[in-house]
């Protein structure tokens, strides 16, 4: 059986890539995808914990329920977020995060 650490390392790598993407990329769609990636990383670790904490092959179900919630919320978020991005593209012909400067100016 694969040890817990491997899952956590994978989850950590995914999270870090996601975070780096959010911080570095300008394109909001990519930023958005990176956010999703960070959520997935969290999901992986949750499921891994669910397994690791289980006894005699029966997992603890709480983290799995939590991860289902996350998936549901992520789906809702995508719906709103993509709608916002489409609206922004219509208004500004651009999806670059540097283009949103109305308040500053």
């Amino acid at each position: 059986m694969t040890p817990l650490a491997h899952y956590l390392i994978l989850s950590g790598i995914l999270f870090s890539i996601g975070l780096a993407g959010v911080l570095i990329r300008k394109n909001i769609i990519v930023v958005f995808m990176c956010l999703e990636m960070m959520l997935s990383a969290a999901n992986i670790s949750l499921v891994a914990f669910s397994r690791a904490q289980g006894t005699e092959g029966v997992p603890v179900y709480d983290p799995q329920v939590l991860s289902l919630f996350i998936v549901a919320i992520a789906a809702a978020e995508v719906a709103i977020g993509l709608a916002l991005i489409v609206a922004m593209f219509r208004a500004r012909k651009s999806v670059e995060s540097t283009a949103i400067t109305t308040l500053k100016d």
Partner: protein
Amino acid sequence: MIQNLPWLFLLLPLAVAAINWLCFRKCACCAATLSILSALGTFGLCVAYLSGALPAATPDIYTWMPISTEGMPSLSLGLLMDPLAMRMMLVVTGIGLLVHIFSIGYMKGDPSNKSRYFAGLSIFMFSMTMIVMADNLAMTFIGWEMVGFSSYLLIGHWFNKESAADAAKKAFITNRVGDFGFLIGILLTMAVFGTLTFSEMGAATAGIPAAVLTATVLCLFCGAVGKSAQFPLHVWLPDAMEGPTPVSALIHAATMVAAGVYMLVRLQVSMGEAAFTDTACTVIASVGAITAVLAALMAVQQDDIKRVLAYSTLSQLGYMVMAVGLLAGEAAMFHLYTHAWFKALLFLGAGAIIVGCHHEQDIWKMGGLAKKMPITTVCFLMGTFALIAIPGFSGFFSKELILDAALAKSPVFFWVGAGVAALTTFYMARLCLVAFLGNARAHGAEHATEKSFTMSLPLIILAIMAVISGYGFMADSLVPFEGFHAHGFELGLPFYVSMGSLVLGLALAWLVYGCGKRSTDPLAGNALSTALRERMYIDKFYDKGLIGLVQDCGTRILEFIDTTLIRGICVQGTSWLIGRFGILLSWIQGGSLRAYSLVIGLGVLFIMFILAFTFHSL
């Protein structure tokens, strides 16, 4: 119950003033009747008490402001019923009554609101009673301010005339200056004597250092300087002539302006003459003498009949104050009493002349009035004779008493008094010669007539008083001073000197003005005359120099506070600070989404770090 009857002295005029003010605004007739009835009532009450028809018991004292701290006297309202107060009340209510009656004739045909006028007279009677009958200084002060207020109302009766409104303001504000000193004096009295009640002051005088006594008396004297219009606060009285003439007679000649002298004598009687130290006495007598001389000089070159009389009042008040300073309270009160009758007579006579000449006040536009207004002329002459102290008239006795006292105490003041007497004779003779003799010089004087009986009657009564009030049989029982006893004729230096100044004044006036044939003043036109007409430039100096300077300083301070402190530092400074702070903070709001998310990420990390490691032990 019967011992509380004297409170009617206060309540009657107050109630009438309130009723006139609130209910009879439209009905001048009712207002006049009520006011006269109230004056008649208080006069009757006064006569009843003086003649002994009513027993003079001490009325209840009403504690107005109880002060529980030990050693501090409570503020109370009580009435004094001693001869000084009651006889003064007789003068006040007697002249008050005559002036009320005269006012009907004087104000007839005047378009202003007469209810307001009579309400003003009643409120004045109330306030003056308060001063006269007060049994403590706090109550005196209340009356003091109230007469100032009623004087303001009455001077400014024709308030749509700008000069009248200004004069009312000037009178009130000038009095405030003196009242400030008076208030300090009252507080000093409270601190030094431990009481404000007149009857308890005498016992408290002993053991107080002379310097403290001097300061107290001089501070209280400030009040008299304001109210009795002594130099340097005399400037308001001539301007107060803008008010109706009966008001000038009652307030600015007979009663209110005498309140300062009355107050000083009251203090001298209750504190004892020992409280009036030499320094204080010298200052008081000198102020009186200066006022007497200056005012008499200025009266010589006035053309307005009321202003001549106003300066004459100033000068006579100076006499009284001088007498107080010479510790001759008796003489001061005697002169106050005779002066009240004959000066009220002169003012009412002037009022009758002014009405008769169709509101002409310039004596050079009168002339020949002796033929056209015989009753007024005779009465006015009686007053004049009393004022210039022709032997046998009331003014002669009182002036003689003051001169006697001056000669006994200090000859300097005696000679000043004699000089002022000569000047008085000169300016009054000038007034009479110009106004009554010769031919009418203007249209108004040509058609002058006696107007009405209500105006002649008070004149006649006052003329009788001006003649007889100085004789012993009247004076002994009426002069507001305890145990007053009139002296008969006494030949001596004072008599010869005052006769000399009388003859000198009359002769000079006759030489200069002849029998009223001239139509302009032969003394006018030179620098001295101009200076006297301009009131020695004292008013100008106050206006331009003193008030201008104070206002200038005030403006600068205000400007500093307003512009620099409030607008500059408080308002603009704060907004500038916040603005700068905002600019500083706006650097954080860079608009870069990535920067935001970095901060948020770091923040989350930070919180997690704290939760995981710091609160571990919880």
